[in-house]
């Protein structure tokens, strides 16, 4: 028994000695390798990036419908004083997981369309938003649906699609940062922003 265990000991000692000898070198390089392999934090590879594109590119519609007949007349008219508009007041709300337009939403869009006809060349970006419920990937899609609902309705009222663009922020830009149902309900919305 004693003999056997001392034999074991000899083997163990040799394993450990060899392991440590080799591990010492190997591990050293391994640890150093990992250090070198760290991601370079916050290093922007500016050269590799494509040139920035405009913040709000007009949505590429396959076949934009011809602008409504009266529109060119208005645009051609000499600049006249157009009443200022509170775009924030025209924001429209949606039901949970829904992108259909309420009668209130349609009313606001009609006001907006009326003003856009007056204003002649003003361009509007429709921002679609969602509440915090659900994963943002789905909410980005939902926000886009909401923005498109508003855009389609405005087009139906005679606003040329070239004057309208959309973007979805999903749940990323809440109007109300709270987590109550009242806050969430405010965040299910589309907003209108003037673009160049």
């Amino acid at each position: 028994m004693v003999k056997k265990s001392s034999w074991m000991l000899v083997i163990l000692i040799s394993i450990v000695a060899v392991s440590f000898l080799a591990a010492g070198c190997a591990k050293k390089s391994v640890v150093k390798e990992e250090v070198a392999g760290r991601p370079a934090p916050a290093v922007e590879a500016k050269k590799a990036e494509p040139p920035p594109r405009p913040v709000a590119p007009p949505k590429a519609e396959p076949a934009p419908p011809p602008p409504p007949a009266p529109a060119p007349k208005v645009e051609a008219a000499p600049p006249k004083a157009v009443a200022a508009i509170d775009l924030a007041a025209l924001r429209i709300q949606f039901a949970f997981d829904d992108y259909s337009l309420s009668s209130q939403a349609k009313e606001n869009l009609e006001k907006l369309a009326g003003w856009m006809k007056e204003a002649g060349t003003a361009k509007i970006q429709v921002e679609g938003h969602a509440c915090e419920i659900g994963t943002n990937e789905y909410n980005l899609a939902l926000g886009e649906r909401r923005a498109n609902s508003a855009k389609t309705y405005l087009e139906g009222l005679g606003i040329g699609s070239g004057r309208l663009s959309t973007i979805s922020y999903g749940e990323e830009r809440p109007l109300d940062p709270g987590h109550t149902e009242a806050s969430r309900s405010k965040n299910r919305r589309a907003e209108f922003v003037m673009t160049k």
Partner: protein
Amino acid sequence: MKKHKLFVSVLLLLTLFLAHPLSAKIYIDIRSPSFRKFPIAISTFQSLAPTRGDMQLGERASEILKNDLDLSGFFFLITPPGSIGKESSPAAGDSSPKPGEDRPATAGESLDFQPWANLGAEALVTGALSFRDGSLTMEARLYDVVKKEMIVGKRYIGEITDLSRMVHRFADEIIFALTGEQGFFQTKIIFVSQVGGFKELYLMDFDGRNVLPVTNHKSICLSPRVSPDGTQVVFTSYKFGNPDLFLRNLRTGEEKRIASYPGLNISPAWSPDGKRLALTLSKDGNPEIYTMNPDGTGLTRVTNHPAIDVSPTWSPDGQRIAFVSSRGGNPQIYVMQANGKNVQRLTFEGNYNTHPSWSPRGERIAFDATMGGGRNICLMNSDGSDLRILTANMGQCEMPSWSPDGRHLVFSATRDGEPRIFLMNAEGTRIKRLTFQKGSDTYPYWIRRRREIGR
């Protein structure tokens, strides 16, 4: 480099030849349904180094090791009472050269296993650290207490900041030696944090340590997913105004925009072989799932439905894709072949099921759902059967992502207010909060690539 490889393989041969009867034993059969937690003792690592912070390096090392082994769920940890681990400590005795004595590192020479056996330990970990000339050395050993034999012993040399990395590496050695499977203690998690006001990508160790910034877009970055080889991350960013997809090399920081179609360029997912990306584009009028090469070429449309289709996740064999669709009236999980054929609905309970994540082990899909009285993480088989709610009373739980071994999940939850990253096992227990920065932390993605033991 070649020289190193050669050296290591010679060493491996030697080790195999000499130690085969020891290392071949599986101590913990983690695949057996009747597996019981394995009692392991961790002696406080002896520290020959100066103090750093208010904790000795040795204490920090044993704390990190205990935390790792505890998180694995395989072990019953035995903490030594004051008497052992000090005077006649196995840790103190076996590796530190005493003054005037220059002996080689040996195993078990002066180790008294009896006190550990009396505590019920079947395995024992000892270790020692020293810090000299700017170089940190850690020696650690795993013993079979019953046989009084060393199972594995390692020495690591690095910088002082490498301490947790050394410990994680030895923890993986322990898992491999006792279970025959690869651990995940050297893996990292990428996530989105708003700590600086913007939403940027950050990396951290799987246990929440060593948080590092990745991007500096000063914008909204979302949905980071790292390639199977661990070198590249694909993500959505509003950097140029529109939600576009970017591919970034995690080593060099080189970045390029790979999808910038009008509308959404979101929810990317790497195929298991890293050769294709599934993603969502709305360029054709509504959100559809496509696949493409990671450089943006070879775009193929996969879904074709007027409803929302988003958030694809691949099966481990790359043959199928699970995704979210609103085609049934509200968001539900569906599965299809990777070419878009044979779409089947998987979830029928609840009216808001999103963010599917397919386990790397194949048979299960995690997702988030409005079930169980709020937003919770759920789990089901990949055919939709055996639906279970894993979380409860943690606020809004969202965005589950699997550990490389398919035994754990990370996710975001509002349990403590703002969304934070949490870790739990796939049974929904052993919940641990990982992030403590200011601002929200979301979109955790557990990087699958790991440094494997014995290769």
